[in-house]
């Protein structure tokens, strides 16, 4: 069994501010991530796919199709966008990288069988590096 991982990037802005908390609580909790006008990151996303080898192609996944899926479902919506203002999920949820990883993984999982209708390859995990030091990972089986 193979796990193939592809790396992508998008640049986006966000602001961490929970409507369930007071202004002061938000400042205390999120610190500079709560600055009122937001800020941005070069997000690095790794998408990992699991599958057996196709003996004709010698590959476990057609990476060109994976690239198309990720571009269509994720990068096209997130790159050079303000996550709070332009991604519907983040009008109700705080765009932490935990929530972002779940959103990205959920979008790929929902569209997966349209692009890869067979049993294999399967989406295994999404890993997001908000910066080189802060990395978040979620398994596809953690998404309903």
């Amino acid at each position, binding site marked *: 069994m*193979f*796990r*193939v*991982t592809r*790396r992508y990037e998008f640049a986006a802005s966000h602001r961490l501010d929970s409507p369930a908390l007071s202004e002061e609580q938000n400042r205390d909790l999120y610190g500079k991530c709560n600055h009122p006008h937001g800020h941005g990151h070069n997000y690095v996303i790794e998408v990992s796919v699991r599958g057996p080898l196709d003996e*004709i192609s*010698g590959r476990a996944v057609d990476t060109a199709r994976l690239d198309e899926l990720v571009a269509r479902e994720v990068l096209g919506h997130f790159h050079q966008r303000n996550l709070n203002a332009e991604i519907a999920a983040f009008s109700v949820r705080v765009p932490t990288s935990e929530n972002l990883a779940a959103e990205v993984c959920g979008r790929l999982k929902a569209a997966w069988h349209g692009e890869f209708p067979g049993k294999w390859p399967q989406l295994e995990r999404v890993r997001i590096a908000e910066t080189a030091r802060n990395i978040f990972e979620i398994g596809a089986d953690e998404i309903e």
Partner: protein
Amino acid sequence: MLITRKIEFSASHVCRNPRLSEEENRNLYGGAANPHGHGHNYVVEVSLEGMPDAVTGMVLDLKELKAILNREIVEPYDHRFLNREVPPFDSVVPTTENIAREIWRRLDPHFSNGAARLHAVRVYETADLYVDYFGEPPCSA
């Protein structure tokens, strides 16, 4: 506990399956099917699983692992055209998956009896594409 050693080699390859037509190869592999080949700086991470020895405090002497990796991978693969110079890639398409599997096959016999067992072979073809191979589950028969 896992220990991982990283090595690099630079090699050229071409991804073409002789059982497929020119057009099928183009559609399947894209630019990687260009007949004269192209190259990568491959990065390989080899992970071994084991418990530290009570006396040495080591899962495996990394000098020993380094020597095995150099002999089995770097020496035969580095600065070579994989399809022409490194069997089995004269008959097996040198995709990242097949390179990871072949490296596993070369390394596994070195770790089949000792305290450290081969856990994973990770091959980076570029910084944007890597493959992890964990071996195949043993035959039930």
